[in-house]
């Protein structure tokens, strides 16, 4: 199956209400799905022979602080046989940004989920080893969240007055 409409139809049949939105962004089919249905949909896309999305290209988080569901996890899947890519997005709450791990389906997801946890604090339920990967383990914030400024907020050696800013 390679057409965008067929894929969307198949996912709709599988997930029902779990498929929230479908759109095509710069030639790539983007499906927004319910977080609780994500694992089911990814496993459907991977393990159904007629779908064949067996390759997880990319997994990353996004933070939209002004939205009611501020955390997004974005999956890029690739059907190499048919050479077709799709993007799956899912949104999580601020209070409990947690989602099922897909590292049982794709070994590649292991570190990518750790990286997403490291940067955004999104918890992947069932992950075998969910610890920080790129940052030091004693870091007490999640640096890619939008509320953290680029400059290290804990630094005390910079006087704002010298940078043209209010003290």
């Amino acid at each position, binding site marked *: 199956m390679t057409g965008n409409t067929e894929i969307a139809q198949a996912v709709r049949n599988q997930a029902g209400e779990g498929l929230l939105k479908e759109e095509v962004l710069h030639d790539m089919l983007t499906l927004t799905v319910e977080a609780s249905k994500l694992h089911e949909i990814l496993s459907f896309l991977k393990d159904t022979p007629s779908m064949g999305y067996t390759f997880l290209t*990319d997994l990353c988080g*996004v933070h939209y602080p002004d939205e009611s569901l501020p955390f997004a996890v*974005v999956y890029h899947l690739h059907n*190499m046989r048919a050479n077709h890519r799709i993007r799956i997005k899912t949104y999580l709450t601020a209070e409990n940004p947690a989602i099922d791990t897909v590292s049982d389906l794709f070994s*590649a997801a292991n*570190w990518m989920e750790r990286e997403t946890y490291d940067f955004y604090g999104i918890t992947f339920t069932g992950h075998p080893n969910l610890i920080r990967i790129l940052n030091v383990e004693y870091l007490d914030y999640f*640096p890619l969240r939008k509320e953290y400024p680029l400059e290290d907020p804990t630094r005390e050696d910079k006087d704002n007055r010298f940078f043209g800013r209010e003290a």
Partner: protein
Amino acid sequence: MKNEQLKQSVGTGSNEPGKYSTLNLGPTHPATHGIFQNVLKMDGEIVVEAEQTIGYIHRAFEKLAEHRPYNQITTITDRLNYCSSPINNLGWIMTVEKLFGIKTPKRVDYLRIILMELARIADHLVCNSVIGVDSGALTGFVYVFQERERIYEIYEEVSGARLTTNMGRIGGFERDFSPTAMKKLKELLDHLPSVLREFEKLLKRNRIFMDRTIGVGPISAERALNYGFTGPNLRAAGVDYDVRVANPYSSYEDFKFDIPIGTQGDTYDRFCVRQEELWQSIQLVKDAMNNLPEGPYHADVPEVYLPPKQLVYSKMESLIWHFKIVMGEINPPVGEVYHAVEGGNGELGFYLISDGGRTPYRLHFRRPGFIYYQAYPEMITGGVLSDAILTMSSMNVIAGELDA
């Protein structure tokens, strides 16, 4: 959990007395080319368990990218895979062009192919000669570095820099290739094949080299796909996936080239696949040079491409564009794009979310090395320590890309 056990055994001797020992390989170790730490649980010389620690040179590129205008992000991409900076630079620039919907002239595409293939040659030369070094043959390494130097001189002629090239502009190039660059390119193409043949003669059918690499650090095609392998490492396992063919960019569809694949996915296959890719890349550079179309070296996109300096001083409109671009006010369209290029070691992807602001809302680098390095413990357990070193160098993991 595994890590905890390993850590404990460092302090308390061994959890099974007399049987296992723990070896800290790295973070700085002469046999690992870059900053990699591996905590190995050893049974004599045999690796029983391994756990990587990464992040030693993490520089928060994704956070930095959220605070920089589009044209200033090119310099960040240099520092990902620094063995093939032009591929990263041009990959990023093509991502932005995809977002803006810019169509570049054929000449730009061909010049880009020349640079990207040169970068691939430089990358593969380093990787393959380092496999030689780690199996005890330093000669090849020193010998092919002369050719890498020629490639770096071409970079220098085109962009002014050697390692962190910051090559190209959104829409094309800042200037056309100079006659000197073309001359150096010709010299390289004259010299490289004979050097490469000698290098191959040194290693490819060398009994010692074959004994050291065949069957070392193998991975099956199925596991490789599950681990997200791309590039030469995946092709060595027997999957003919190459972004240049699957999703052609920069007019790669105009060229005819072969995609070499291996069968065993071991160190020797990875070496051979890279070696064959070198020949294919040389052919691609030759073809691109011979068929280089005439025409402009940049697209006609004044809103993102800096106007010539003399016009900035004499024309109001150019001055306005110049000011806006330099200040980073280029009004990108709102949207999301994913663009992938075939990097030196795999599919290098850029996932860019734009909210129309001066900086990306989110930029994620799909770094091939970060993803496939996960498989390293699986590939080395059961082998001896010296094979583990060889496996790592044959995977072409670059620390800058791994830690972003």
